[in-house]
């Protein structure tokens, strides 16, 4: 079975008699729990057909529709969602896809998680904390396992480094820890680039530490940067650093995507023209597996809101229409793309009466 608790999509998870085995804390909670969420129109409980009709009514009258989310849905749902967006000229907004865009544009070098396990000797966790977001990354790929060319694993063959705004849990296992000052990410990169060119950096950061870090990165045979997708570092600074690193060393970047299938939607939307409607100007916002109001205050949404989600969310409490759906890889099958771009089939783990978001989007598409 495959766990869709995070973008690692661990394929070794098992479920016996209601007990989840080999999943992490997030995976276990994701597979075992599903909150009560009812189909609703105008905050009144209705049947599924009425909720879908309610959504159709809003979509058919929308002049400036915006779709948000898509990162927590199976690839098939995303494909149907894109077709629906094209049909009604809706804008699709996904978040935290900047690094994936740079990978898809071949601006930065990347690799697979299997490559990391087999070859990586210097691993940098840049503004990310996998111990809290992708808990099995270190044990399955990045640090602890023996790989083809890394038979001695973390004890001798791998150096882990954290560069972050705080001393994270992941930092506690790293040989080198560098703290970035909030808002001064680009200065840190400039200083590091100076260090890579054997220059003493003009910086407020500890020069000795920067030179030591530059030395470690230069010696890497196969380096990997795991980059937090919510990182505040400007994208152009990341590209500049990767270019400089690859002049003196061999470095790859992998985005720590927050949604289990964010990589897939980013790839599908890559190079696609978008109507570019602003969220605040939208007269209809469709949230697909995404809790918009968790990050955007209610008063900033001016349009009608439709929520399609397996769980009760803040957005579902304020939405005009709520359509509950099955969770991808738990009570509905499909496919997804792992954070490193590898496609993974998602079998269904358990039966439920809920219909999939792909089926809901299909019904909306056909009726529109």
């Amino acid at each position, binding site marked *: 079975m495959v766990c869709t608790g995070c973008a690692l999509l661990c394929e070794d998870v098992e479920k016996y008699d209601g007990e989840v085995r080999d999943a992490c804390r997030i995976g276990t*909670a994701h597979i075992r729990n599903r909150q009560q969420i009812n189909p609703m129109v105008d905050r009144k409980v209705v049947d599924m057909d009425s909720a879908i009709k309610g959504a159709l009514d809003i979509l058919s009258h929308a002049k400036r529709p915006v779709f948000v989310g898509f990162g927590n849905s199976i690839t098939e749902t995303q494909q149907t969602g894109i077709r629906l967006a094209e049909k009604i000229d809706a804008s699709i907004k996904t978040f935290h896809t900047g690094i994936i865009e740079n990978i898809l544009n071949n601006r930065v070098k990347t690799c697979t998680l299997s490559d990391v396990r087999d070859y990586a000797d210097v691993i940098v966790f840049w503004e990310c904390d996998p111990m809290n977001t992708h808990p099995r990354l270190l044990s399955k790929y990045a640090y602890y396992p023996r790989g083809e060319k890394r038979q001695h694993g973390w004890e001798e063959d791998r150096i882990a480094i954290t560069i972050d705004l705080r001393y994270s849990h992941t930092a506690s296992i790293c040989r080198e820890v560098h703290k970035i000052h909030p808002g001064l990410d680009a200065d840190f990169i400039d200083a590091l680039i100076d260090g890579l060119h054997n220059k003493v950096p003009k910086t407020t950061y500890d020069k000795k530490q920067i030179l030591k870090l530059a030395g470690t990165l230069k010696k890497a045979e196969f380096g990997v940067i795991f980059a937090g997708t919510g990182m505040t570092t400007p994208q152009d600074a990341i590209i500049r650093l990767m270019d400089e690193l690859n002049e003196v060393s061999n470095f790859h970047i992998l985005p720590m995507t927050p949604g289990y299938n964010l990589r897939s939607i980013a790839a599908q939307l890559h190079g696609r023209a978008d109507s570019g409607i602003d969220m605040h100007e939208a007269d209809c916002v469709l949230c697909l597996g995404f809790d918009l*109001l968790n990050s955007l205050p209610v008063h900033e949404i001016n349009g009608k809101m439709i929520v399609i989600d397996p769980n009760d969310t803040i957005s579902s409490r304020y939405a005009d229409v709520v359509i509950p759906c099955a969770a991808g890889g738990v009570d509905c099958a499909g496919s997804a793309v792992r954070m490193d771009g590898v496609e993974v089939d998602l079998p269904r783990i358990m039966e439920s009466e809920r219909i999939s978001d792909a089926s809901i989007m299909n019904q909306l598409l056909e009726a529109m």
Partner: protein
Amino acid sequence: MRLQFEEFLAAPECKIMIVTYPDIFQIEAKLKYGKFSREYQDLSAIIMLDSGDLKKIGIKDGDTVAIKSEGVNVVVTAKESEEEHPGIGYMPESVWSNILGVYPVSATVSRSQQEIPAIDELLSRSVS
């Protein structure tokens, strides 16, 4: 209700930069009990502060603080960090932190005697 003398005094403030972080236990509580649960709120409506900053605003670990940033006011529990990070407050990623704006956020933090609002209440009264 009996008024206390401190309520007539302006609580000392401390300027901080707020940075968010992920917490696996909070993510687990969200998946297990939901975003409207007490378990999720207890792990979300918090700010980790430097011990020196706690002293500056005259509070101790576990007291409530008001965080103000550009007209938005959020009340959360203050926790004392083991490491030193003067002028920086760490908050778990949640609606309590996101409502303050895009990170890193400049804010002021001060002692508060208000109760920590539940999500519904927070969303309705966050803009003051």
